[in-house]
């Protein structure tokens, strides 16, 4: 072999032929196995199953807590923000006292209330708790499962596990997460006027977020209350709303207030195109958006 001069002519030995033929046959087999065969990651995904996955996300047996926010009713009083900040002891800069636009790190509430306008220019008020996505980007990206889905669909933080990488904060499409940049030393101005702190402050270096007042839901269920019906088991923001713009309840229960409203009124969910399947539904202003 090596003594011969290199030739340009292609010589196909039996061995080469077998190798090439084998490789070709192998590729065909492999391609079949990988596209439709047992090795394929897509083989078993059929339409029903895609729907099945969605059902698995959405129709957890048991409860699935959800909220309806009526933008048409909301008067922008910020009571929900205040009650939330008191109950969950959230560090919030009071808007009127935070006149320093250069402040590099304003303390944002879990539950925002802002002025909004429709396309036609009609003003309305928009508020946003954590939307508790059925398919939550934050849960996907957390490297340590510090944020996770509970059985009842709530997206919850484990403050003892969070490493503070802030990837969830980056991945959340709704800006619903807040990082504890420093140790809390503030006096919460909303306590006791708007409620008392029902959960402890979160430590420095972890991410925190709205929980739908999970402590009330859990304790309330145990005591036989119905979240959304009985005040004891209902999130603070829902209880305090003076115009009833917020409703809370079990989306899996067709008789709950939220399910009733969703089935009768036209509702939207925020950035539905992202497929996040949020648990918060909005009734839009009468004038449209």
């Amino acid at each position, binding site marked *: 072999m090596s003594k011969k001069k290199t030739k340009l002519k292609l010589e196909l030995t039996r061995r080469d032929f077998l190798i090439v033929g084998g490789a070709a046959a192998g590729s065909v087999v492999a391609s079949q196995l990988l596209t439709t065969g047992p090795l394929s990651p897509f083989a078993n995904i059929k339409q029903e199953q895609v729907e099945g996955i969605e059902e698995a996300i959405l129709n957890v047996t048991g409860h699935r807590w959800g909220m309806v926010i009526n933008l048409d009713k909301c008067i922008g009083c910020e009571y929900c923000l205040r009650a939330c900040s008191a109950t969950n002891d959230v560090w919030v800069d009071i808007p009127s006292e935070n006149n320093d636009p250069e402040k590099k790190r304003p303390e944002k509430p879990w539950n925002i209330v802002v002025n909004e306008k429709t396309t036609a220019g009609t*003003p309305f008020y928009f508020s946003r708790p954590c939307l508790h996505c059925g398919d939550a980007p934050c849960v996907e990206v957390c490297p340590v499962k510090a944020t996770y889905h509970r059985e009842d669909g709530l997206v919850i933080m484990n403050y003892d596990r969070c490493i503070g990488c802030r990837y969830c904060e980056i991945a959340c499409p709704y800006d619903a997460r807040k990082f504890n940049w420093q140790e809390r030393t503030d006096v919460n101005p909303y306590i006791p006027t708007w409620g008392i702190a029902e959960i402890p402050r979160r430590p420095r270096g972890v991410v925190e977020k709205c929980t739908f007042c999970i402590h009330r839901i859990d304790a309330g269920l145990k005591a036989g209350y119905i979240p959304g019906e009985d005040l004891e088991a209902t999130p603070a923001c829902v209880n305090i709303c003076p115009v009833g713009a917020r409703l809370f309840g079990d989306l899996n229960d067709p008789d709950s207030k939220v399910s009733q409203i969703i089935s009768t009124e036209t509702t939207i969910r925020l950035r539905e195109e992202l497929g996040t399947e949020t648990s918060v539904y909005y009734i839009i202003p009468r004038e449209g958006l």
Partner: protein
Amino acid sequence: MATSTVGGQKRFSLNPATLAWIGLIILCLGIGIISALAVFWNGLYITNMSDSVPWGLWITIDLSAIALGAGAFTLSAVVYLFGLKRFQPIVRFAVFVGFIGYSTALLTLVMDIGRPDRFWHPWVYWNVHSVLWEITWCITIYLAIMLVEFAPVIAEAKFFDRYPWVRKIAKYLHKLAPFLALLGLGISLLHQSSLGATYGIVKSRPIWFKPSMPIMFILSAIAVGPALTMALAYIAEWVSGKKSVPDDVLRSIARFSGFVLLVYGYIRFWDLAAVTYYGRTPSVSEAFNLLRQQTPYNFSFWVFEIFVGIILPAILFLTPRFNRNPGYLVMGALFAVTGIVINRWNVTVGGLFVPLSYSPGTLYQLEPGKYFPGLPEWGVAIGIIGYGLAMLTLGIRYLPLFSKEEHS
């Protein structure tokens, strides 16, 4: 450095230049340690990061350091998998540079997380759906692989004359080299691209969410990692005065880098064309408009990422007129490194500058995420650079990084 001596001097002559160099490294490390302590003590509050820009300079350093460490897996694969034994003399050094890059990244990551005391959580609490989890695993596994790959070199240090059993183990480990190279290649391909995916999968951020992210990250890493190794090999040669790696090998690496840079440039071109022109969406156009109007994004993209980072080094690496001169090659590598660092910065900080939009109305808009690193962040960055320089200096001085031929 003007310490070139003929024939390899045994001891450092403590001339002014060497002293100044050591002083500089100690200064950098000192600044770094003070800044790090300040951050650990006060928390991330003293940085300039915020809830709208939760990642900043440190993540840029992580991403850059890991990309710059890509010479290790690329050159190991070239030698042990593709059997190009010609490149053998540089493998050890490449692994050494890679190790510095990866350990740098891990150090910075520990600084960057809010709870450094919980740095070990990803190994105990798994979320297999998370790219960040995968990256953490890959980086630590790969760091371990590099340590094993590198063990024989450390064992060759004079110190281990007294412990022959260490050498024996090291010799055995060396036999694993091809296997380790294969494993390293797999793991590197995974995480170098996952670093891009970290951004590419975030569907709420218009200028990140695209499948080209991982590809661009890995291509740029494969291009620039070996180039940096090549440049550092030249610099080591100039400083120590010892010819260690043949010029033609280094030039081949530069040419390889140049070609990969061109491929990277091509992908970037198509990415740009697809994202901003042919397949543009309103949110992406809006995001780029905002970046163009309010930040120097456009300038830094075209000048630093494209011209300095891709075109200039490609010319210096590929044209015979320049690539016969080591000075130009080192300069080219420097340009390419600048390009990649600016690119990682632009991806991270640029992407976070664009505010999220989720409100159903038309009025409410989040502020653009303004960010410039604060003093403690720069301090830690300087310390990290000091760490890299210290490791390089010690390695070049005390370790047989360029042993002649290894018979395998």
